[in-house]
């Protein structure tokens, strides 16, 4: 406990700072992410509090609750990233198609 807490707190502060400093997103997104950071921050400071919340929703241990939340959050992020990737691919295809059609050439008889 003595080493883990300050290390995790440092790490979470660094993450929060770099997010705010380097990523521009909508106000709502920022509020959601800051809320998540805050929750993680509190969970590190008061580990026993997670068990209280876990018990309230019918899960045995706080660690289990964290694991479930983390798993779902990760899956959710994957889905979002995948749909973004698909969108980028669509845009890239449109761009390359546009170029291809605009610069279409006719083969010429050689020899």
């Amino acid at each position, binding site marked *: 406990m003595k080493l883990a807490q300050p290390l995790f707190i440092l790490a979470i502060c660094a993450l929060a700072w770099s997010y705010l400093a380097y990523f521009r997103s909508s106000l709502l997104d920022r509020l959601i992410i800051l809320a998540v950071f805050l929750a993680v921050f509190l969970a590190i400071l008061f580990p026993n509090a997670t068990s209280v919340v876990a018990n309230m929703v019918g899960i045995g241990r706080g660690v289990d609750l964290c694991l479930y939340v983390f798993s779902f959050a990760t899956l959710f992020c994957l889905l979002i990233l995948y749909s973004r990737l698909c969108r980028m*691919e669509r845009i890239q295809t449109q761009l390359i*198609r546009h170029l*291809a*059609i605009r610069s279409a050439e006719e*083969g*010429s*008889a050689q020899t």
Partner: protein
Amino acid sequence: MKVPTVTANKDDTWVVVPCFNEDAHEINHVLQGLVGQGWSVVVVDDGSTEPLLSAISMSGVHVCRHVINLGQGAALQTGIDFALSKGAQYLVTFDSDGQHSAADIPKLLHPLMTEDFDVVLGSRFLKDGQALNIPFRKFITLKLAVWFTRLTTGLQLTDTHNGLRAMSRNSAMRFQITQNRMSHASQILRYIKTLHLKYTEVPVTVVYTDYSVKKGQRISNAFNIVWESLADRLV
């Protein structure tokens, strides 16, 4: 089999040939067959390492080049868009590896022009169709694909992954292939289903040569196609 005569203006009928790293000799042979019959031809060079244009030794063939490789589905859609922009009334998709026979094109166009069909699919497995020298594993995979398609779309087809097909301008304008890679064949079938396009199959000949088998997709890719088809419906 009697080959019906096609009376349409051949300038209005565009053959779309997607290509990727095709052998110069092979592709010229394929294009000669098409140009020789008088069709308008657009080749889509899907980001070949060596630009295809310099390898094509005949006039009258239009070449669109993707600056990077996107996949056969994307190449087909580019060719279709180009042909539509040139006023194509009928469109034919045709593989670049020499598997298809230009002599089958009139057979495909006939139902479009005389019977008001929207899409005509070539089938190597219909009576009178031929799959010459087909490798056994390929045969099994294609039969499984037919079964899978019947199960998922309910379309009663005999050949679901044949690159030789024809469609009218109206139907081509109603759909957009977004499956850039190999799942476009299944996607076209899904469009036929969802847009209620009037379709039919005609027998065609597909010839497997060492070259076409080498160029063709690996059978293991069938798993990717199934996956992409499922993902397409979810996302």
